[in-house]
């Protein structure tokens, strides 16, 4: 765990302690379970985003993808009576295709990631709204899918299964990002794509793979979100989720210039954001301030991190100066 991640972890614990002191109900198992459920949902989304950000890209369409794929998933199983495992596979495949198309436009046709995914943001939500004719996709009364519901919204030993899914995904993705050749290529491309190309790396494919991973994880979280809300109005479902995901990554030490960040960081970023949301509700802060609190904490977090880096560099220098002066005096 890097120093940065450790700092974030400490921040999370300090905030948690303060909230628990003010309102001890914060530590109730039910509250922790509720919050960790959302951490699971947003965490999966944020890991996907992180894979794109590490290449120096950005994926602005995730909120809309969550809306579109969620709508389709519910429609498939609730209206069209598809078997849910089939629907599940279809949705994940759609996520992969969306990622592939984005990656293709970005790497082959050399469009900017911001532009491609901004268009995605506009288009996918529009399609979802058109698909439901601006209505709502939801289950009919009494429509139940026991296994699916257990896997997505259920709990095992009191722990939400969505959170367990996040832990599993995080471990796999940690290995991929930090131990595999593919992960190393991602970092390299994020820092210097040209050089990676000169080294014989098929950078296009690697970047495309990053978008596909993002698409798949987004699709997965879309299913989780759909099963959490059990109802989707495409006009608003998942709105701003791309900002949550990006914010989690940024808080977790990712640079939008690419080539920086760790998987533990993005998870901790998600945890902090969800803790903040929980705190606003538990401490009775007006919900209108919810986003403001989130924005304020991100800003302060990034600022402290940045200033801490500057401070450390300076202290190192002063230390060196002192040592050298002492050495010179001794000579």
């Amino acid at each position, binding site marked *: 765990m890097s120093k940065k991640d450790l700092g974030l972890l400490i921040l999370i614990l300090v905030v948690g302690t303060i909230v628990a002191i003010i309102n001890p109900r914060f530590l109730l198992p039910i509250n922790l379970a509720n919050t960790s459920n959302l951490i699971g949902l947003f965490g999966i989304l944020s890991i996907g985003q992180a894979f794109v950000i590490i290449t120096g890209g950005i994926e602005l369409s995730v909120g809309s993808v969550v809306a579109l794929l969620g709508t389709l998933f519910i429609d498939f199983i609730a209206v069209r009576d598809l078997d849910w495992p089939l629907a599940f596979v279809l949705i994940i495949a759609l996520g992969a295709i969306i990622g592939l198309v984005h990656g293709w436009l970005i790497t082959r046709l050399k469009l900017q990631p911001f532009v491609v995914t901004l268009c995605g943001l506009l288009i996918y939500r529009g399609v979802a709204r058109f698909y439901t004719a601006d209505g709502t996709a939801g289950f009919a009364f009494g429509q139940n899918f026991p296994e699916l519901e257990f896997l997505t919204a259920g709990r095992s030993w009191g722990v939400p299964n969505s959170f367990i899914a996040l832990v599993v995904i995080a471990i796999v993705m940690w290995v991929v990002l930090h131990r595999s050749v593919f992960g190393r290529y991602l*970092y*390299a491309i994020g820092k210097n794509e040209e050089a*990676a190309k000169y*080294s*014989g*790396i098929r950078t296009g494919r690697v970047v495309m793979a990053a978008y596909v991973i993002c698409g798949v994880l987004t699709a997965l979280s879309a299913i989780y979100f759909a099963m959490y809300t059990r109802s989707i109005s495409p006009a608003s479902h998942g709105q701003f989720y791309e900002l949550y995901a990006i914010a989690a990554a940024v808080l977790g030490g990712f640079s939008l210039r690419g080539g920086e960040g760790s998987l533990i960081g993005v998870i901790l970023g998600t945890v902090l954001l969800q803790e903040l949301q929980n705190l606003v509700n538990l401490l009775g802060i007006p919900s209108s301030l919810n986003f403001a609190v989130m924005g304020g904490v991100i800003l302060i977090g990034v600022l402290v991190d940045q200033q801490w880096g500057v401070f450390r560099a300076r202290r190192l220098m002063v230390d060196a*100066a*002192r040592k*050298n002066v002492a050495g010179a005096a001794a000579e």
Partner: protein
Amino acid sequence: MNYSDTSITASTPFLSLENVRKTYPGVVALDGFSMEVRPGEVIGLVGENGAGKSTLMKILGGVTTPDTGTVTVDGIAHDGLTVEASLGSGIAFVHQELNLFENLDVAANIFFGREPLRAGPLKLVDRARLRTMVAPLLKRVGANFSADTPVAALSLAQQQMVEIAKALSIKARLVILDEPTSSLPLAETDKLLDVIKALKADGISVIFISHRLHEVERVADRVVVLRDGMLAGTLQKSAINHDQMVKLMIGRMLKEREKASEAARAPGAIALSAKAVRTPAYPGRPVDLDVRRGEILGLAGLVGSGRTELARVFFGIDSSLGGALELGGKPLVLGSAADAVAQGIFLVPEDRKLTGILLDLSIAQNISLPNLPAHARRSLVSASAETATAEKQKTNLGIRAPSVQTRTGTLSGGNQQKVVLGKWLAMNPKVMILDEPTRGIDIGAKAEIYGLMRALADAGVAVLMISSDMEEVIGVSDRIAVMHEGQISGILDKDQFSQENVLLLAVGKQPQ
């Protein structure tokens, strides 16, 4: 395939180029060029800036494809190579411009794209094996840093060592080095030349591009000279000498260089003076240094001795952590490069691509940039004033370009360097700091730049020239200051000039 098996026939070319032609809009970079490379041969490739050397190498590295012509490797003809094909046939390439990942460590960079893998489908990096593979390579290039140092923490020269180690790590049959010594000081250069000889002994071919002709003389078996994208001539081992190369490169003999040991000049008044200045790289080592009007003060030292850092402080990019600066006897406080420029202190930085010029702007726009208000009426830029200034510099410096509206990014390295010089010469320098001013510059242009520096000094400008090229330091300077680990270890006057003295000071010893 056993790459070191050269016994087949030593004379069968490993690689040959035939009638290669490459054009860029407005420029013919290569024109009907042919050459061969035989196993175990060291070829020196020389030519003026923009002669087409890098273009040629880029074709071999698969980075660009020729318009016409064929590249034959191992008897298989290609219209153009891809990067993979090039790597696959055993061609290793150290680019003129560095291409490292500063967020990865040295080991990761050296084996980038060829990581040792653990068994399994996930393609996990075998980090232990990677470390054992890197150690001997670093030793071979004489690196003074460890394999897990992040590249961001290395100096430019150290990064170049990493690049070379990388080329060595490929079980290559041909190693291409595009100006590998341009920022390497003496000792490291020697090591590199030894490395080249060792490669040759292993039967590996080397193409060595350099503007430092004496280095070429020392290692090359054959010299290929390029001029204006065409083959100007080939010199066999016995015929390789400095003057012959120069003649082929520029089509005439260079006039005898102005003798360095003319009558010593009378030193002028102190222009820029550093009193116990502490740079961020060596905060514990105060620097005292005076640069006088009308002199060229050479600043020599080993890799990472802190010369660039000092120049950055003089130019206001970094702030001094203590001590004081004076300009013409008055205290000088620099908050930014803009302050330095306002005071007439200019810097030609060592990293051209990143800090020297704006590759996307035209020559004219680059030259006017530091002095834009002077090219403007009521804050509106006058294109004609810009063009006029740029035309003047283009003629003065002999910048080779279709016009001053050409994008600087398309110029060859040497011509880009001239643009950097041009932008400062168009203003009135009081103190001119040049960090490796002739890095990557051909011999003809070098002489011109030396002349320019001398003219500046004669006009009363204080010139501080940082250089790792020993010949240059001794040949051009009026005085030489030598840095060792962030401090000035000594200053040599003209009568003390010698390679030994500079070297002794550079390693922290006093000359006899």
